[in-house]
């Protein structure tokens, strides 16, 4: 069997499972934060959360496929292990970056909303 195809066969399912797992964790545990941001409007929050989940799948799986498209030619087993490690590391680091960015957005948004509420109450006669 062509070693490139073997690499894709190992790489794609594993990375897909990882991306889907991370997205579902964000979907589940981001919900309480979103409820805080949208004044406990749970119908709106669920709709928004589902759309964001689909967007997360699309972008992550698309990036995984693009990494596969630019794979170098693999001739030996050593090369197979080396390129697999490199590309898995890239995907994991990108997922980590996106994850922390998500957390940062939620925290900052909550922070500013909280500040605005305090200011609003202070300026009321």
């Amino acid at each position, binding site marked *: 069997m062509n070693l490139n195809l073997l690499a894709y066969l190992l790489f794609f399912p594993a990375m897909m499972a990882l991306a889907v797992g991370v997205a579902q964790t964000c979907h589940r545990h981001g919900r309480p934060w979103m409820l805080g941001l949208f004044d406990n409007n749970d119908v709106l929050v669920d709709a928004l959360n589902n*759309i964001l989940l*689909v967007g997360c799948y699309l972008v992550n799986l*698309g990036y995984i496929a693009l990494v596969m498209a630019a794979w170098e030619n693999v001739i030996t087993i050593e090369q197979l292990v080396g390129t697999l490690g490199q590309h898995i590391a890239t995907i994991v680091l990108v997922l980590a970056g996106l994850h922390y960015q998500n957390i940062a957005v939620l925290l900052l948004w909550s922070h500013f909303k909280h500040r605005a509420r305090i200011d609003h109450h202070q300026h009321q006669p």
Partner: protein
Amino acid sequence: MANKFVLTYLVYLPVVLLLTLYVARSLFKNGRVFMLDIFRGKTEIADSTNRLFEVGFYLINIGFALRIMEVNGYWAENLYDTNQEVVETLAGKIGGFAIYLGIMLFLNLFLFMRGRRKSNANRMPRPVEPTAPALA
């Protein structure tokens, strides 16, 4: 089959069409909530607008998917007869399309949020909430 162009197209088309279908359905199933908010609970006009946007979404995205379908450039000058080439070409095309679709999804979501904010801003101001009774 000497070269694999036809095989590539046969795999590419169903994948892309089903992906567009899935994304559009889940986007506009959830988008109905935003439309109801924007049109203040007028169900009929909210559903109509939602449907119009959905049809537009299908047209743009399926059009783009067909536009990038053709295998050309580097591959067209080679034999293009191994499965490895097919997998790599498909990964490039479908991956690029998925990211494009994600950007379109977020664009639509941005429009929903913006419409909702504008609609809320135009609404009649709320009656003043009763404040705590003054001391003594």
